[in-house]
């Protein structure tokens, strides 16, 4: 891959960044919008993290001490909603904004004004969600999965606000996804054929497809909750011929693809970082593309593995069990390919690589506990225990979130033109790595022993482990402040200037433009050979 057009001619209305607040409010620039998304996601990460601290403080000891159970439920609910819709998803969208146009040689996203709109509706949505916590009756307390009848018959009056804020989050995601898809279909530079696209672009393409397919289903689910609660329908009420289990089917038809929405872009990131620091080409590029595609397609037919204990017919249980296990095959292909890429490479361990390596190991642990949960009779015991909590935190925190951090460390020098503070970064990595395992690993044990999730109190036998879990939690929370400090320094443009290439061995169009990346890149598309 090579390109000549790296010098940027500014002969038209394109100049540098405008200044002042209007720059951010009115922007149509994919880099500005990417920055907005990333900062928003980080702030939400801290807010959602603060709620997790409340949860862990309450669970530090058995008994009820700090918050009342209703507030505890609100904390678990809003923590989950914020982390999923406010932190992980916007962070990936921010990365897509920054990177996809640069990686495919496009001047910007395909629909720049809509891009601005899809970002700026997000703060409103979360303002509504957070505001509901302070209203009469409190915020949503039914878990991020808002199962009926918890969210209908037994929810508090502010549920309508939850419903409409989820609608806005959905609209934002759909618009963002349309933008990504159209950009990739229509804006690739000449010569950037499908099978030359960087994997981050591929994985985001497929993620965007998943988003457009399932976010509307979530909108349907919250709408039915709204009408059931406020307008007397009985979708989820057996007395009217509906069924609360139907809620779970609709929700998880969205929910399972949703978890892949939160991990596929991570696969793309890791597939970019591992080759760079192994100084080898990615092993099995084509198989990565096919694995991603088959994971995405399979993700539509496994949803009921979240519902094994609802009394489905045994045929359905078996079908969903085997379909779920099938997903481990393409997932395994990916892990194998990453390991094969490193095999006999001349590896170095810069900060992005550290996070990527931690990702591979820890995400695999999460995948393995998922496999255990996929076994029907086993899940009968594990369901709704801390074992599930351990599973999804391994795939989401040490999976999705670690990949996002890896990505930030990998591309930050390209964005700011300066190397970040490596000492701080290493502190951030090691503190996070150790504390995250103290936090989540013992959850496997208490889960296997039967500690239920989403309950503010627990039996005395779990006390020791929970103390350690909480300590790990506080340490992980504090470690993120190191990241905050590092990011503030980076945004103030402190640090050593870096070259265009930044990391030796990094490949792709984004490394051929200067660092920091100019405000407008690829006004004229490069030619990719």
């Amino acid at each position, binding site marked *: 891959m090579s390109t000549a057009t790296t010098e940027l001619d500014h002969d038209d209305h394109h100049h540098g960044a405008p200044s002042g607040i209007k720059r951010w409010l009115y922007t*149509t620039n994919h880099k500005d919008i990417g920055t907005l998304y990333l900062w928003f996601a980080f702030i939400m990460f801290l807010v959602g993290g603060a709620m997790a601290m409340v949860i862990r403080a309450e669970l530090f000891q058995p008994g009820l001490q700090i918050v009342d159970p209703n507030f505890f439920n609100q904390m678990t609910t809003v923590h989950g909603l914020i982390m999923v819709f406010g932190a992980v998803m916007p962070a990936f969208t921010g990365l897509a904004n920054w990177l996809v146009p640069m990686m495919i040689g496009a001047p910007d996203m395909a629909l720049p004004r809509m891009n601005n709109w899809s970002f*700026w509706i997000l703060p409103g949505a979360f303002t509504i969600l957070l505001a509901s916590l302070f209203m009469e009756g409190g915020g949503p307390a039914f878990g991020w999965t808002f199962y009926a009848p918890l969210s209908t018959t037994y929810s508090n009056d502010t549920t309508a606000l939850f419903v*409409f804020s989820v609608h806005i989050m959905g609209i934002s995601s759909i618009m963002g996804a349309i933008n990504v898809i159209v950009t990739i279909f229509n804006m690739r530079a*000449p010569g950037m054929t499908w099978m030359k696209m960087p994997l981050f672009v591929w994985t985001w393409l497929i993620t965007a497809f998943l988003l457009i397919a399932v976010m509307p289903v979530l909108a349907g689910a919250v709408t039915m909750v709204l009408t059931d609660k406020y307008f007397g329908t009985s979708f989820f009420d057996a007395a009217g011929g509906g069924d609360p289990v139907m809620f779970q089917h609709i929700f998880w038809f969205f929910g399972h693809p949703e978890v892949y929405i939160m991990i596929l872009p991570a696969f793309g990131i890791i597939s970019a970082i591992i080759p760079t620091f192994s100084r080898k080409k990615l092993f099995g590029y084509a198989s990565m593309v096919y694995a991603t595609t088959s994971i995405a397609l399979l993700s539509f037919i496994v949803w009921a593995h979240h519902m094994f204990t609802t009394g489905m017919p045994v045929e359905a249980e078996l079908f969903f069990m085997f379909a779920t296990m099938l997903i481990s095959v393409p997932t395994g292909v990916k892990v194998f390919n990453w390991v094969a890429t490193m095999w006999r490479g001349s590896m170095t361990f810069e900060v992005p690589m550290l996070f990527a390596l931690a990702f591979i190991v820890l995400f695999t642990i999460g995948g393995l506990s998922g496999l255990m949960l996929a076994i029907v009779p086993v899940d009968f015991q594990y369901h709704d225990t801390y074992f599930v909590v351990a599973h999804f935190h391994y795939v989401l925190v040490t999976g999705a979130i670690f990949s996002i951090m890896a990505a930030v460390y990998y591309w930050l020098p390209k964005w700011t033109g300066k190397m970040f503070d490596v000492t701080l970064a290493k502190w951030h990595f090691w503190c996070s790595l150790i504390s995250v395992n103290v936090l989540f690993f013992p959850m496997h044990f208490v889960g296997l022993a039967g500690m239920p999730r989403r309950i503010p109190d627990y039996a005395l036998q779990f006390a020791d482990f929970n103390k350690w879990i909480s300590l790990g939690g506080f340490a992980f929370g504090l470690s993120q402040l190191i990241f905050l400090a590092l990011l503030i320094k980076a945004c103030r443009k402190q640090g050593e200037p870096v070259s265009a290439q930044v990391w030796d061995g990094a490949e792709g169009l984004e490394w051929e433009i200067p660092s920091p990346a100019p405000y407008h890149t690829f006004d004229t598309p490069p030619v990719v050979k």
Partner: protein
Amino acid sequence: MAQTEQAEQDYEKYYVPDQSPWPIVGAVALFLIAFGAGNFVVEQTKAQSGYGGWILTAGFATLLVMLIGWFKNQIDESMSGLYSAQLGRSYRQGMAWFIFSEVMFFAAFFGALFYARVIAIPWLDGAGNNEMTGAVLWPDFEAMWPLLSTPGGVQTTAMPWTGLPLYNTIILMVSSVTCHMAHVALEKNERTKLKVWLGITILLGCFFLYMQVVEYIHAYNDMGLTLQSGIYGNTFFLLTGFHGMHVTLGTIILIVLFLRVLKGHFTPDNHFAFQAGSWYWHFVDVVWVMLFFFVYIL
């Protein structure tokens, strides 16, 4: 190097718009709508007082301002020839994916309909391994579709597919054809035909909506079929209701297109807005056919 120069010659510049105030206005609008609607629903159904309705109205007003401003901006750009063929493709693909997302929205409600009919209701009557459910909870309940008597005892009557719904189906299907004819006329640059066909399409759309209102009044007043009459009424009103909202939006889009046609906009090879509007119209027609089949006939 040579190739780059080559590319530069072949390349029609992609129009990346300058800063625009409209999206942020739209964001404020959506915030007000969501916040207003949330409070409004609570206030109405829980008999509380508050400002929900006002905030909601302010939201819609802001949205209207945004739509007018944004579209005016867009039309000016298009008319002054800033757009390339590539940008046209972006818009078309964007619209196509948007329609796909709408399809999935309806799919959720169709899914609820199928699940209730095929699984939930038979189970309530003890089908499969649910014998005890039937025997213990509601021993008198009998599975049927349409569900005219719920386990809880709410009675209703079924909406027949003959008569008004059948006429409405014919109306919408004809309107799909007239919409297509308008598009053909536009591509052949036959402006009078374009106006006539488009005008007919709009009238058919309005007539359809009128008939829907008549049907709803009939259902509520004479048939005892309401939003509260169990899963049959729920799926009936939510599916036809959301469809009706989409027809309303589609009709408004067609009216705007009609006004633009009168002003002389659109050419045989530059008419994205028209194409998008007609796609949207065909989409609501297809949804209706599905509705007619699964909600009314079956």
